[in-house]
């Protein structure tokens, strides 16, 4: 179908047009990291007898002895070849680390987004159906409550209550109970891998491990999602075409779902994209609190250690995902809204 071709072409064009932004991110991060006053070589040469020589060794290893423009040039060439450098914190190539850890972050983010959407959209709709009512105010208060606690506090509290006091939740130490044997890695997403392996015991272990951190993260994004859903629903419920739908005698549910909601989904989709990217980058604290072996906490440690390569790699990855998510949202938008593909 030409619709598909059109969408593909638009997506391709958008992707190409975002490449300069990626390059910008790359260079900017590189420079930002060099501005950091910490010298990674000194930090990692922390052995009890570390001397000048050891520091120099590490510096040479990292290529820090070269002039800055040359370092940048080398870095760009390396990145173009898919080499993101080596992390001093883990001693592994950054790309390997990221590959290992990204599924963890993604799984968490998806789960959180899922929980958030599942609660935000119905809440938003409920509020929009009766604007100004008790329900509306209740939803508003509920959402505002969610965003007003820093994630690290809500995370620690949840752990305290559900793990320490009640013992309902498994120990908050990563993606799966340490005594559960891992499934063969197919996708890196434990829920999927366990399911593929047919290990439902394991699946449950992984899922229960996921609940608290995902919930902590979701709490924070329910508000913007619900807010947008409400606004979009209000505006589509008040629109002319909904009036038309009423005038031809469609049932109330059909009007709400097929006419109002389908149209209201569009702005929600846009926000979901933004929320997803910000969550992925901003769940540093949640990952820290829950010992989640994701990319954000990885970058945080590296940042505090002035370990350049992982931070640069992480930022590049995030930017790339950002572009990708935008692309996906764009395509979805194109599918959901036929008006887009013209213009």
């Amino acid at each position, binding site marked *: 179908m030409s619709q598909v071709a059109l969408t593909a072409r638009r997506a391709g064009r958008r992707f190409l047009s975002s490449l300069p932004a990626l390059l910008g991110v790359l260079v900017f991060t590189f420079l930002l990291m060099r501005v950091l006053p910490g010298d990674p070589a000194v930090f990692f040469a922390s052995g009890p007898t570390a001397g000048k020589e050891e520091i120099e060794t590490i510096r040479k290893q990292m290529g820090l002895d070269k002039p800055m423009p040359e370092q940048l040039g080398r870095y760009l060439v390396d990145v173009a070849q898919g080499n993101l450098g080596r992390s001093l914190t883990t001693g592994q190539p950054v790309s390997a680390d990221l590959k290992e850890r990204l599924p963890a972050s993604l799984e968490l983010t998806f789960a959180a987004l899922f929980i958030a959407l599942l609660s935000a959209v119905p809440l938003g709709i409920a509020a929009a159906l009766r604007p100004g009512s008790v329900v509306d105010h209740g939803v508003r208060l509920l959402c505002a409550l969610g965003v007003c606690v820093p994630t690290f506090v809500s995370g620690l509290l949840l752990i305290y209550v559900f793990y320490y006091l009640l013992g309902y939740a498994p120990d908050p130490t990563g993606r799966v109970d340490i005594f559960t044997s891992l499934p063969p890695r197919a996708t890196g997403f434990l829920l999927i891998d366990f399911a593929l392996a047919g290990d439902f015991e394991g699946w449950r272990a992984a899922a229960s491990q996921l609940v608290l951190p995902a919930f902590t993260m979701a709490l924070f994004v329910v508000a913007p999602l619900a807010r947008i859903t409400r606004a979009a629903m209000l505006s589509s419920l008040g629109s002319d075409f909904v009036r038309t739908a009423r005038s031809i005698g469609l049932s109330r549910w059909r009007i709400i779902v097929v006419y109002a909601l389908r149209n209201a989904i569009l702005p929600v989709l846009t926000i979901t994209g933004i929320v997803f990217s910000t969550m992925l980058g*901003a769940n540093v604290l949640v990952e820290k609190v829950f010992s989640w072996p994701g990319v954000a906490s990885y970058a945080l440690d590296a*940042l505090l250690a002035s370990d350049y390569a992982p931070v640069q790699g992480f930022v590049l990855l995030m*930017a790339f995902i950002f572009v990708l998510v935008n692309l996906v949202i764009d395509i979805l938008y194109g599918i959901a809204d036929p008006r887009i593909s013209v213009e």
Partner: protein
Amino acid sequence: MSTATLRHAAFVLRGNPLTAIAAFATGLLVLVALFGPVLVPYDPIASDVAHALEAPSAAHWAGTDQLGRDVFSRLVVAARLDLAIAASAVVLSFALGAVIGSICGYAGGRLDRAVGRFVDVLMAFPLFVLAMAMVAALGNRVENIVIATAIINLPFYIRFARAEVNVRRSAGWVEAARACGDSHLSVVLRFLLPNILPAMAVQISLNLGWAILNAAGLSFIGLGVKPPTPEWGIMVAEGARFISTGKWWLVAFPGLALMLCVLCFNLLGDGLRDILDPRMRT
């Protein structure tokens, strides 16, 4: 503000008790920020190790911290700094973002695309990590926390202002202003900017809360305001370390203050949206 706007605001507030409460609480908060330091019972940074980690009592309403400092006094005194951080960060990003965004939205074309690219670069950054990196690079002084928070907010303001101006730029009154002899720049600054202000007020209000949380997050990983200055974020971050030992007051009270403050801003933002929503006006 015209009287009609005030009247309209009063009307919305009456139908919207949450916003009214939030507005009242925000006012209270501002008062605390202004006069708190002269009202508190104790010196917020004077230690008293003999009375460290005492639970709330009549002498110390919110208990004492690790150094025996009065938590309540610290909370009250912190209000000023926290509000100042939030306000200045938001004002900074708003001022920059609104001007840049309006100009782009009005001018369109190449400039718009170029700035759009720049905004894309910023947006593509994992923002919290960017803030961390900036604070780490510039040093964790209050100014730098403000700057970092402002910069990570900037793209949203630019986009918002751009979109708002874009829908207005072909309005009759914009062309009329041109016909009356205004230059493009003056149209942007004197006509469009004031007109998008109300819409941006909502964004500002929501962002105020977010800025405070952001500062708290930075504190949590050790990049916050310098000790021993009282600041809610730091107090929560430090208190969080005591959750497991049952010293609940150390995290509960600052957390509550933070929560209340952010809650107020959020509810206020929601309310503002209603006040400013033209559809609510008849």
